């Protein structure tokens, strides 16, 4: 890619050296048309990102040249495949500021990473004293927030049900931020674990992790951060965040589906009970019982998602070469532009922070017709699709947020490194069209 232009597109200043038009050329799908001859306007990157050629090439090359099972076999292909798989562990560790590669565990996705911690906690009951830190039972509390994706809510509800612990949550303010007024009353010394989203997939809010982590530490609770929507969009340093665990998924950061990451502090992973049992996660197996491998392999039972992990490594290389600070700056500019542009649509209700401060590029809204009646997001999405504009509609796997704001669903436009302000303009024009259609 060339690093000469410093514009988003259409004149919006962007990070020095970041040229979105050049970036778009790396993503073949962005050049396709839909509904015969309409250009694709892909504003659904919070659901999944598109994939650059470098990632597609890496997966193909893996299968064409190196395919073998990893961590077993002593032949050339097995060693090459293992080398590629383990190289991604190093890349991911560097990408998120982890000091030890053994802190990076590959999972299927964020959901599995979060379930891994939740199940490890209930498995701690039947593990040795070293797992004391993970034990949880009646009288103990699990704390989440009201803006969690179901993947960081339901596993904790299930943990509460398995163990008799109580689930509590930090509520929301009307502008879509965490209400920290009663933080000390929600996170008490009964809290065993505090799990929260870094950037909300539905509201776009970027949460004040440091403040919540400080309180959780005060009371000795484990901290888990769902970085599904933050790791793909901003520089991440786990040491600076101060959390104990970070979960994220590859497919939202230009990697293939089917691979995610659980990062955990090594001293915790070393004493954390396993979740899934099977091959590769063991040390010694007899018919009577087994001992387990050290991390990360203790948490990677069975043949892993090798080609996807290789793809994730290529995605990390790709994002690193562009620079996460530049990507974050570009998306911040597009988000600010979009908030201003959406404000020109009459009777537009943004669900989430109205400004670009501590906010990422996922904007949820409810559109109304001329009579002031809400147009259902499903209808909005259908009419936008007719124009080649892809948005997400529904409750975005965060139904409690919809309940909190009294809406059945929202329409969500979400951005990534390849999003242009021209695409935001197309969205706004499309929304005017939707209003006209339903105001007839």
């Amino acid at each position, binding site marked *: 890619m060339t690093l000469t232009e410093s514009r988003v597109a259409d004149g919006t200043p962007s990070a020095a050296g970041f040229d979105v038009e050049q970036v778009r050329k790396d993503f073949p799908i962005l050049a396709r048309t839909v509904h015969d001859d309409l250009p694709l306007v892909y504003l659904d990157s919070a659901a999944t990102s598109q994939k650059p050629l470098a990632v597609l090439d890496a997966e193909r090359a893996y299968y064409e040249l190196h395919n073998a099972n990893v961590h077993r076999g002593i032949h050339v292909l097995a060693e090459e495949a293992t080398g590629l798989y383990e190289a991604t562990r190093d890349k991911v560790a560097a990408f998120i500021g982890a000091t030890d590669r053994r802190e990076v565990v590959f999972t299927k996705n964020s959901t599995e990473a979060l379930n891994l911690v939740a199940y490890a906690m209930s498995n701690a009951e039947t593990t040795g004293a070293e797992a004391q830190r993970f034990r949880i039972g009646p009288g103990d509390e699990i704390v989440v927030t009201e803006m969690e994706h179901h993947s960081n809510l339901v596993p904790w509800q299930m943990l509460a049900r398995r163990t008799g612990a109580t689930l*509590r949550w930090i509520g929301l303010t009307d502008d879509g931020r965490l209400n920290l007024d009663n933080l000390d009353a929600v996170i008490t010394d009964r809290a065993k674990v505090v799990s929260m989203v870094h950037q909300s997939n539905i509201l776009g809010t970027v949460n004040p992790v440091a403040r919540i982590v400080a309180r959780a530490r005060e009371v000795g609770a484990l901290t888990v951060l769902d970085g599904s929507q933050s790791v793909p969009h901003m520089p991440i340093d786990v040491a600076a965040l101060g959390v104990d665990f970070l979960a994220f998924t590859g497919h939202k950061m230009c990697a293939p589906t089917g691979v995610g990451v659980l990062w955990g502090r090594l001293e915790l992973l070393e004493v954390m009970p396993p979740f899934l049992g099977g091959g590769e996660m063991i040390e010694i197996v007899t018919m009577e019982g087994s001992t387990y491998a050290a991390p990360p392999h203790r948490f990677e039972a069975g043949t892993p998602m090798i080609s996807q992990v290789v793809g994730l490594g290529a995605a990390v290389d790709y994002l690193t070469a562009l620079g996460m600070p530049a990507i974050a700056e570009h998306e911040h500019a597009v988000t600010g532009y979009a908030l201003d542009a959406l404000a020109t649509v009459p009777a537009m209700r943004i669900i989430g922070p109205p400004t670009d401060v501590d906010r990422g590029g996922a904007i949820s809204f409810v559109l109304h017709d001329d009579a002031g009646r809400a147009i259902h997001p499903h209808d909005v999405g259908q009419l936008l699709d007719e124009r080649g504009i892809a948005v997400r509609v*529904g409750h975005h796997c965060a139904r409690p947020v919809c309940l909190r704001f009294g809406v059945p669903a929202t329409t969500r436009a979400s951005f990534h490194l390849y999003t242009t302000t021209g695409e935001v303009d197309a969205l706004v024009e499309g929304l005017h069209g939707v209003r006209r259609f339903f105001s*007839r």
Partner: protein
Amino acid sequence: MKLDSMYQEIILDHYRNPLHRGLRDPFDAEVHHVNPTCGDEVTLRVKVADGVVEDVSYESEGCSISQASASVMSDLVIGKKVDEALELEREFLALMQSRGTAEGNEDVLEDAVAFAGVSKYPARVKCALLSWMAWKDATAKAVDPAAAAPAPVGAPLDVPEQEKP
């Protein structure tokens, strides 16, 4: 535009001015159905007397297609014998599963043939079917409470209530 095949004027009319809306007494069975992918919900009541669908009443939240379908469905089945109404449901289901290949029999389905265009959009078929499925479920319960279908899977998790700090 292509979408006009889905957003027929007759559908938009029912959406703007839905028939038989609101929950009424008396009723024999009440059900609550949801479409988790888009958040559409319907609460629907059925009153059956002497083998005839005497009343269908509902409260619903959802897109224009699901709202209009509830209106058309209730208007169609009210006053019909249960067997005839169930036959209509089968006709409508077949139309919705036709992927745009069927036009529907207007003599039988009346306004409901307007949904033929929806069958071309797989993501929207569930919207059109939501109230029909709710009606079918409620009617089964009304006609024979003992033989009614089991509750949908995914019962609410038994999570302790949050103490309000």
